[in-house]
């Protein structure tokens, strides 16, 4: 009898809680590279995402946002697997995914098979994702790898007087896109790229790659990220390397500049370009840095947000702000929501962001130089701010289309 009544009470309370908190939820799936080579990038991306939630809150009208996170390892199949799991098992309606270049292309292609859902790119930066055959339900609020290199080639050629450079990069779409952006500008001014080395993502032993670096160049461009960058710098230091360095957007980034050990000191003085600069004076940027710093204890974050944190912050912002504009209305295959997403202009911490007709961001780019703050911490200092960078990098779309898609040997080193 006693047991029976207890059971009844329990059942009753479940029913009650059901009615008392009956609140519609909007489920959002998030992926980040929380394993493998890009683990630190994924972790900081999630910090940026959390910072945005701290600022905006999770309410949309009378609905509550629920975020479900899945982990990937920067390979395209891991990203598609994670996205499928989020859609099929967790029944998410909106996706904030993915982080890395090849993942982005795969998720964009997958997005076409689910036209009733909306995909918001979290941070991936391969050009192909939004440039070739874009998916109508895929939105990207960060620039691509080539846009993030705008200004670097010119600064290297005109201010640093570099004439010949060699590149080392990870062998996948995002780094191809970065070298593409660099080469167009640097070679367009008359510079030469004498060798391009490509290493597999997740390379451990760089000794032979380092040995094969040419001596007769003014600088070496590094397009590496995460553990690969740290491994490279460590072994570069052991090999006694002394060349001038240039860095890609995830090479000169807090994910590397805050790495343990002193191998990163090789980066002091390195010039780079990216969608952000750590020491930018802009009030909006400083406010974001403060929000990021306040959200996590110092040993659980970087001194300043990485590019990934900023991208996740911005994409989460776009996701929530557009959803609020339509008051959480996802009816009619999310048509209203998509319209709002396409039109929204973000007042992002790293400059204003709006989308073009391919739903690809037009934003602000930064040329930077790595400095030591005097206490052993490294930061990227602003050299130049370039607003309104579009995906065709200011080229006429017809000319740009003739260059070809970024690849191991594309573009050729010449003026287009």
């Amino acid at each position: 009898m006693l047991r029976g009544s207890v059971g009844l009470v329990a059942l009753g309370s479940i029913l009650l809680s059901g009615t008392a908190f009956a609140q519609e939820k909007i489920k959002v799936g998030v992926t980040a590279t929380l394993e493998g080579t890009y683990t630190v990038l994924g972790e900081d991306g999630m910090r940026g995402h959390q910072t945005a939630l701290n600022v905006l809150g999770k309410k949309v009208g009378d609905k509550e946002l629920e975020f479900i996170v899945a982990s990937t390892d920067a390979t395209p199949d891991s990203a598609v697997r994670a996205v499928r799991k989020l859609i099929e098992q967790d029944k998410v309606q909106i996706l904030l995914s993915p982080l890395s270049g090849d993942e982005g292309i795969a998720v964009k292609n997958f997005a076409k098979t689910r036209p009733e859902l909306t995909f918001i790119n979290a941070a991936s930066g391969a050009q192909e994702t939004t440039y070739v055959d874009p998916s109508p339900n895929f939105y990207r609020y960060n620039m691509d790898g080539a846009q993030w290199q705008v200004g670097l080639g010119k600064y290297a050629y005109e201010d640093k007087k570099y004439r010949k450079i060699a590149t080392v990069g990870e062998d996948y779409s995002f780094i191809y896109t970065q070298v593409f952006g660099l080469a167009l500008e640097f070679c367009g001014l008359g510079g030469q790229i004498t060798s391009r080395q490509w290493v597999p993502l997740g390379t451990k032993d760089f000794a032979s790659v380092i040995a094969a670096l040419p001596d007769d160049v003014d600088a070496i461009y590094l397009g590496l990220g995460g553990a690969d960058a740290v491994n490279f710098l460590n072994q570069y230091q052991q090999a006694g390397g002394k060349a001038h360095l240039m860095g890609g957007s995830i090479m000169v980034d807090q994910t590397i500049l805050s790495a343990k050990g002193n191998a990163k000191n090789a980066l002091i003085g390195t010039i780079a370009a990216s969608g952000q600069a750590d020491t930018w004076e802009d009030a909006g940027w400083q406010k974001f840095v403060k929000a990021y710093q306040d959200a996590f204890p110092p040993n659980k974050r970087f001194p300043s947000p990485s590019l990934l944190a900023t991208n996740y912050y911005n994409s989460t912002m776009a996701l929530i702000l557009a959803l609020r504009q339509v008051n959480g209305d996802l009816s009619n295959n999310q048509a209203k929501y998509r319209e709002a997403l396409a039109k929204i202009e973000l007042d992002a911490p790293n400059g204003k962001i709006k989308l073009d007709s391919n739903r690809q961001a037009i934003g602000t780019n930064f040329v930077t130089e790595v400095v030591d703050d005097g206490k052993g911490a490294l930061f990227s200092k602003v050299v130049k701010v370039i607003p309104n960078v579009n995906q065709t990098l200011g080229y006429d779309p017809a000319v740009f289309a003739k260059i070809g898609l970024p690849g191991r040997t594309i573009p050729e080193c010449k003026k287009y």
Partner: protein
Amino acid sequence: MTRFIERHPAWALITIIAVAVLLWLIFAVWPPGLEQAIGRKRIFLNAVLNGITLGGLYFLVASGFTLIFGLMRNVNLAHGSLYLFGGYVGYAISAATGSWILSFIVAFVAVALVGVLLQIIVFRRMEGQDLRQTMVTIGLSIVFADLMLWAFGGNFYQIETPSWLIGPIALPLVSAVRPSGEMVYLQYPLVRLVIFAASVVIGVAMWLALNRTRVGMIIRAGVDDRDILAATGVQIQLVFVLVFALGAGLAGIAGVVGGTFQSISPGEDTRFLLASLVVVIVGGMGSIPGAALGALIIGLAEQLGSVYIPTYAIVVTFLIMVVVLALRPQGLVARR
């Protein structure tokens, strides 16, 4: 050696010619035509040295693996987990105390203890049941991998190289001759040479211990016939525990080495398990010189492959394994 030449004159000739060509490539100044055909000598020399030093690391991992197999007929597929655990322990000690040497000692002791526990708690209960042991070790490696992921996270750890080992030294190998006639000597990272020297010392010490000491004699006797050895009154279980501890400890040391010149992270356990499997299959299961030869071949194949045929580098290792399995399935230096 002489017997090998008598029995296989053709193979012996091929080997001698190959060694001669290799020595010429290493010591001679390359004519310009050759440099144009296959690239600069510096790259070749670096790849060879990298292969040899990487082979040193592989040897450290594989020697423990092969030792345990040789004596106990136990294919310990959790060996990679021991490697990774050693790396994490080494990192923790090095980060806490700043001492690189101490991290080796602690990693050796800690991982050896895990080995002792494994032998006493797990393997003693299923002695002589090969398949069961293999299955249990696969299970254990999965459990260990998840425990370590939980404790250390998915991040990459790098053990800091002590300052006296940072930087390159000039080797007495000519990498090029400048037009002025000046010799350019090869610059090579000191830390890799030191680590290689250490693995050679460990290898030689192990060989001496096995062949010149009483304990070594007991172990060799155990490899040949466990039952008779036990019947002569030797405490065979104690020997098993000791060998397991040594093999595990070596994997722990290898973890610290790997954490110093590469880095440690989840996934490294299976990478090194696979590497040591390939190494002992090529060299011959249960043989220490075989592990050394196998490690050298695999290390060289990986590094030369990554320089000269980057796209197919991964295949080369397995190709070697397939060829060895096809032509000499017992391994190159198999015990008869």
